[in-house]
């Protein structure tokens, strides 16, 4: 099979611009998801069943349906109520944030619960309130444990942001599809796009491993 490099070169500026947007929306998604996720995690760990309920429902819905459907509903149902004309990039960031918040909440919960119970007890026995103990003792330790799974979630988001092409958000996959449509060829655009994704996720993975190693040597201070 012949591989037409001219297709790749023609579209490279678009692929690169798309890559920038892919990174941008994924980063925005993971950062907003971080804030929402922390709130949801704390809500889900409440001792009150009725406070836990809405957070549980949220997590179940966003983890239980394909992101594609979530994006369509957000872009065409919810965003237009606040914004006209709605912008697919805004919808994509909202969708990725809400979706990742559900996953990040579980990451936070696991991180907090992995901290030895004795830490909370020691803090409380020194007279700290629950909130003080969380803030000064538990969360600073949990943060270290959640960084690796959060990096992972970022990688997941990077790949899933490719669904933004359905909303015509001009990210990497969108330009891959555009190129495929123009030349009615599948190989050149998709292999190029796949390679760009691979470079992105692998660099991130190595960065993550580096951070993880740094964190674990920090632990041995």
């Amino acid at each position: 099979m012949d591989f037409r490099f001219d297709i790749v070169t023609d579209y490279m500026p678009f692929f690169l611009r798309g890559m920038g947007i892919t990174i941008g929306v994924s980063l925005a998604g993971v950062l907003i998801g971080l804030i929402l996720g922390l709130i949801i995690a704390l809500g889900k760990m409440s001792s009150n069943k009725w406070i836990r309920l809405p957070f549980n429902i949220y997590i179940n819905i966003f983890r239980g349906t394909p992101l594609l459907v979530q994006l369509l509903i957000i872009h065409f149902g919810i965003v237009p109520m606040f914004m006209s004309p709605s912008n697919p990039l805004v919808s994509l960031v909202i969708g990725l944030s809400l979706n990742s918040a559900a996953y990040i909440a579980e990451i936070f919960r696991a991180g907090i619960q992995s901290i030895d119970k004795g830490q909370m007890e020691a803090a409380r026995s020194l007279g700290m309130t629950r909130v003080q103990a969380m803030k000064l003792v538990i969360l600073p330790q949990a943060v270290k444990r959640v960084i690796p799974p959060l990096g992972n979630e970022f990688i997941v988001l990077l790949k899933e942001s490719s669904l933004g092409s359905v909303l015509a958000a001009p990210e990497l996959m969108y330009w891959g599809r555009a190129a495929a449509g123009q030349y009615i060829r599948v190989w050149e655009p998709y292999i190029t796009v796949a390679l760009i994704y691979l470079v992105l996720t692998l660099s991130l993975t190595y960065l993550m491993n580096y951070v993880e190693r740094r964190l674990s040597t920090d632990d041995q201070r």
Partner: protein
Amino acid sequence: MINVKNLKKSFGNNEVLKDISVDVAPQEVVVVIGPSGSGKSTFIRCLNMLENINGGHVMIDGKDLTDKKTNINEVRTDVGMVFQHFNLFPHKTILENITLAPINVRGMKKAEAEEKARVLLAKVGLAEKASAYPESLSGGQKQRVAIARALAMEPKVMLFDEPTSALDPEMVGEVLEVMKQLARDGMTMIVVTHEMGFAREVGDRVIFMDNGYIVEQNEPKALFDAPQHERTKAFLSKVL
């Protein structure tokens, strides 16, 4: 100083403390012994409200812990606690471990808290470890820091739950030494321990618990040498 009356505590259907009454006078050192699962830890944790109390009353320095109006965080600053597994804060230096609560709970100035912390560290023989992290300390050193951390809140009572059980035998001595000094300085202490030598040397009273009850209590010498109850005898014959 401490007055416990008809204290009851269950986990689900498991009645762990069935009816505990005991008074501890200021400056008294009380040693609690008993077989595994007898409720020693639960008892001592109830004194600090780390466990919810199901019945009876616990008064610390005149404040009733079971009274809803009592500010439990305030009471806790009066009651220092030392755990079997140290529970130092691994993300803080030794100095920060000690100053964290004084600064954030008591609202003490950082400089003042640090100065006090250094005095305490010197007292437990670890002045040079101020800027180390817990990871780099031996078990015995960790436990001495934990004691200093509790003392930094200037508690009126100190509770110890098997402070030497997680230590290598050679490190037991250094921790007991710190505790003995504390006793000599007049601190009111309740100590759960298997160290009978310590009980003999500094204990004013030894309490033998079994199955959620206080079976017997007496001066150390009297209890060890002439236990009254069968269960006390059986237990002592195994551990002495």
